Structures are given as C-alpha cells and as structure tokens.
C-alpha cells in the first residue's frame, strides 16, 4: 500500500521512494550538471500517480473479492455444519499426530522409489536411444515398456502387483504390501521419467554428437560425456514435477493395507463421520510440496542464469 501525501506541488522536491523504479529525478543538483527538464519531472509525477492509482484499485478489488467470498461462505445456510464437519479443532488435534505418523511412510517411499525411478528411467531412455541395428530388440522392448506402463492406470497397476503377485506364491518373493506397492510405483513412474529423459536426449542438437564423434570419442563416450550431461540439466524441472507427483501417489500403496497419511485420516473419518482429518492430511501434503516447488523454481532460475551467461556445457 502506498500512502498518498495529498497533492504535491509541481516543483516540490520528491524524496519518496519511487515505485516505478524510474530515474532519480527531482533533485536539481547533480555532479554532471544535469537538470531534469520540467517535462521529465512532469512525466515522472504522472507515472507515480498512475502507480499509486493501480495499487489502490488492486487493494480495493482484493478487499471486495475477499468480502464477497467471506459472505458467500460464512453466510451460507450450511456453514455452521460445514465448519463443524470439515474444520473441527478437536478432530484436527486428534488427526495430526496420526497423519504425521502415516506421512513417514510416504516420505520413505518417496526417497527410495524416487532414486529407483531415476536410475531405471535413465536406463530405459538410453536403451531407447541406442543406435545400430543390433540394438533393435532392446529399443522395441524399451518402447513397449514405456507405452504399457504410461498407459496403465496406476491404481490398477498397484492392485495387480500388491494383490496379484502374492497370489502366485513364488518362493522368496515378498508379500509385504509396502515393498510391492513401491515396486508398482517404480514401474509406472520410471516409464514417465524415461520419456522425460528421452525427450532430453533427443533435444540435444545432433551437431553436439557429431562434434564429439569427430573428436574421436566413441558413441558411448559421446553419450556419457557430451549428450547426457546437457540432457539431464535441461530435464531438471520436468523431473522434479514428476517427483512431486510421485510424492502424492505414494499414498496409493494403502491399497495393500499399509497405513499412510491419507489412510490414517480415513480411519478417523470412518469412526467419527467427521471430515477434518482429510483437511489435515491435505494441508500436510501441501506443506511438504511447497519446499519442493520452491526448490524446483530455484534450480530452473539458476539454470536460466547459466544459460544466459553462455555457460551451457
């Protein structure tokens, strides 16, 4: 908010911070003897006035919007009951520790699956971009894998892996629903991430590979030292996007009976018929995602700066 100090006289020196970030005008004495013209001062005054006006309008419209929303929600005939059902302090207090306990499972799954997904996704992407006729079957297999697991709904994938694999009664294969659920998550997400990597690898201009080969690097060396470093750097933002998405999907392993944050909320909701625990679980997830989002933004900005300085390779 800016504070308007009434009408300032046209010649009055203006020592206020200038919101528009314009030139430092007003003071008629300067080292180089520069005296801003009357027209320039006038222009700056006009700009400042416009900026103040814009701020005032924005503030007013925000206030009006807030008031309208408040009235719509709080004046709604069902508000008292909605408040009791969704925003009950008592149930929030009860749910919070249980939800946090469940969240620990989400976080562990995120860390382990996240690492596995990156490695597996990279291997599949490289397999898909290998050149040479001898690798044809490998390319086809990798393509089939990504097509299948990207298309298969995650929830069905989880059902099959968590409830179907133990039914096979294979010796030495775990029946732990968390391990199985993590496997299913890794299968689906490595297909997503493989596509991200592949797009990255293919976005590197062929001249880079050609230049590397002409310097005497083998195909593998060119991939390892020239193409992949550039590709990975370019792919960081979409990869982090997939990571945030994976973090939320970890909760789906509760299909196998494991208690994650959302299922912990579910349990209390089912007993009490009060939805507040869902709100608590939702906010906890958001709180977990925000740092990751900020980190993503920071990485992106940093890379943009590097690229602007020509420090791309």
């Amino acid at each position, binding site marked *: 908010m800016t504070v308007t100090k009434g009408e300032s006289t046209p010649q009055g020196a203006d020592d206020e911070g200038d919101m528009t970030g314009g030139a430092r005008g007003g003071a008629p004495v300067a080292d180089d003897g520069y005296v801003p013209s009357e027209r320039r001062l006038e222009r700056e005054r006009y700009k400042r006035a416009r900026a103040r006006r814009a701020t005032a309008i924005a503030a007013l*419209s925000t206030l*009006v*919007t807030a008031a*309208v929303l408040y*009235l*719509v929600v709080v*004046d*709604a*005939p*069902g508000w008292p*009951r*909605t408040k*009791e*059902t969704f925003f009950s302090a008592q149930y929030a207090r009860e749910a919070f520790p249980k939800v946090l306990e469940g969240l620990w499972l989400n976080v562990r799954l995120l860390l382990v699956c996240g690492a596995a997904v990156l490695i597996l996704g990279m291997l599949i992407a490289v397999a898909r971009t290998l050149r040479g006729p001898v690798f044809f079957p490998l390319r086809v297999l990798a393509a089939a894998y990504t097509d299948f697991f990207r298309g298969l709904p995650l929830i069905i994938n989880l059902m099959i892996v968590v*409830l179907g694999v*133990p*039914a096979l009664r294979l010796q030495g294969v775990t*029946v*732990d*629903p968390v391990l199985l659920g993590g496997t299913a998550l890794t299968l689906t997400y490595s297909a997503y991430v493989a596509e991200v990597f592949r797009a990255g690898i293919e976005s590197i201009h062929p001249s880079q590979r050609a230049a590397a080969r002409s310097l005497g690097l083998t195909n593998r060396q060119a991939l390892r030292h020239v193409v992949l470093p550039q590709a990975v750097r370019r792919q960081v933002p979409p990869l982090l996007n997939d990571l945030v998405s994976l973090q939320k999907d970890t909760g789906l392993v*509760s*299909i*196998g*009976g*494991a*208690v994650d944050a959302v*299922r912990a909320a*579910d*349990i209390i*909701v*089912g*007993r*009490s*018929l*009060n*939805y507040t625990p869902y709100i608590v679980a939702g906010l906890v997830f958001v709180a977990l995602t925000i740092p990751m989002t900020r980190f993503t933004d920071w990485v992106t900005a940093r890379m943009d700066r590097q690229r602007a300085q020509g420090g791309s390779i």
Partner: protein
Amino acid sequence: MHPASRALRRAVAAATVALLATAVGCAPQPEDKASATPSGSAAKSCAKGELATRTSGKLTIATDEPAYEPWFKDDKPANGKGFESAVAYAVAKRLGYDTSAVLWQSVPFNKAFAPGVKTFDFDINQVSISTERKKAVDFSSGYYDVRQAVIALKGGKAAAAKSIADLKNLKLGAQVGTTSLDYITDVVKPKQEAAVYAKNDQAKSALKNGQVDAVVTDLPTAFYITAAEVTNAKIVGQFENQGGTPEQFGLVLDKGSALTSCVTGAVDALRKDGTLAKIEKQWLSDAVDAPVLK
C-alpha cells in the same frame, strides 16, 4: 481518461455489484433449523405413506455399491433378498410405503454422512451406532445386534487362537471405518500395526495371500466369507461386546431429519412384533455359534 479504461472500470463495477448481489441475494434455500435432538412432536405425524420424504409418495433408501452378502443378494438391493434388503422393505411397509413406492440409490459410505442436502430418506449399510457418529447424522434405533469375529486360514498361525492374548503377536487386518478395526486397536491392541483396507474384498485377498494372519469382520460377514468365499478359512472366534452394551446397526438419516422419529418408531415396532427376529432367522440363520474370545 481513455475510453478503454472507462469501459473496463464500468465492467469491474458491474461485476462487483453482481458478485455482491450473488452473495447476499441468491443464497440457497436455508435448511430448516435442525435441532440436535429428533423431535417426536405430534405436529410431525407419521401418517402412513405421507411422510415428508425426498420424493413425495416415495421412500428413497440408499446403500453402498457393491452391496455384500449376506446383507443383500446378487448386489441387487431392490430384490428384497438378504437381511438388510428385507429389513428395509419391512420398515418401508411399516411407514406405509409398499414395494413399488421404494426407490433405491447407490451412495458410498463416505458420502452418506456428508453435510448438505441428502438425496435419500435413510441409508442402510451396516452402520454401527455410536455417540460420536450421532454428532454427524441421525440414527434410527438399532435393527440388528452385531458381534465382531476373527477369521483365519485353517492351519495358519491364528487358527488355534483361544483368547484375545493369542492374537496380540499376529498381523491383523480389517476394513477402514468399521468397528471391526476399532476392536483390533482398542481391544486386541496387537504389537504390529493393523493392516487397514478400503474394502473387505482386499482384506480377503490379503488373508488368502498370507499378508495378514487374521481378519476381523462382523459375524454374519465372517460366516459368509468362510462358507462361500474363502473356504479354507474358519471363524476363530467372536468378541464379547465392549462396555456391556450390544453394538447395533442403525438406519442413517440426515442430522435433524423430520423422519427420524417415525423411522425409529417403525424399527421398534418391527422388533416388538418379532418381524426383525424372523428376518434375521431367514437370512442370518446360523450366525450364533462361534467360540467367544476372552
């Protein structure tokens, strides 16, 4: 002043006015102030077939989908077969609605107690009555006294359990939102965290796959599962009622519903004249003889 910005300002002003008008003027029809206690005043008479139902002259009854045996048969609540279907029609008849005036609706458990206008008159879905839940919905009086039972695979770790203490070191499973789960956490208090499933179907799979040692369900369901679905499982035993009062299933109505007292009256009358006992005998015939775990 540019004409463009003037037009914009006008538009903003108009939109603001419209919004405010919306906020103040077009509020949805207010709910009739729901009192916390169902009022059984004479004003709300329970005239047969003329209750203040959702659809006048019809009674809308909700249950979840799929509807499980032995409570319903063939996933068709409207066929009158299965314990809860039969109870629903008996209650409807008592209220003056014959079979043709009953409409069925599929409503998931979680949605049945959401605030807001209900789409049904009452919901019948094996919902146990509790004081905590009464804060969110109205219940009729209980139409079935339920007990919880433990199922395990024959020859498995839990099959030989004779007491609650024998269950402590096992991996137990139950469906979320059920009193079965409460029995695990509050009565058995096992050393391992219970496995919690969205549906009993998944709990059954987990039992077959050896992911849990035993599953807790209500007794009729346990009988049905062991008889028809997981035939290599058996009922290990049933729990005693906690705190002396029998756990009961009740019909779920909207909080402060005008029908609560009428529906409760109907259920009470059916209990009194033996209809409930008859229906129970017909559909849940042998659900009585399981050893009690102490």
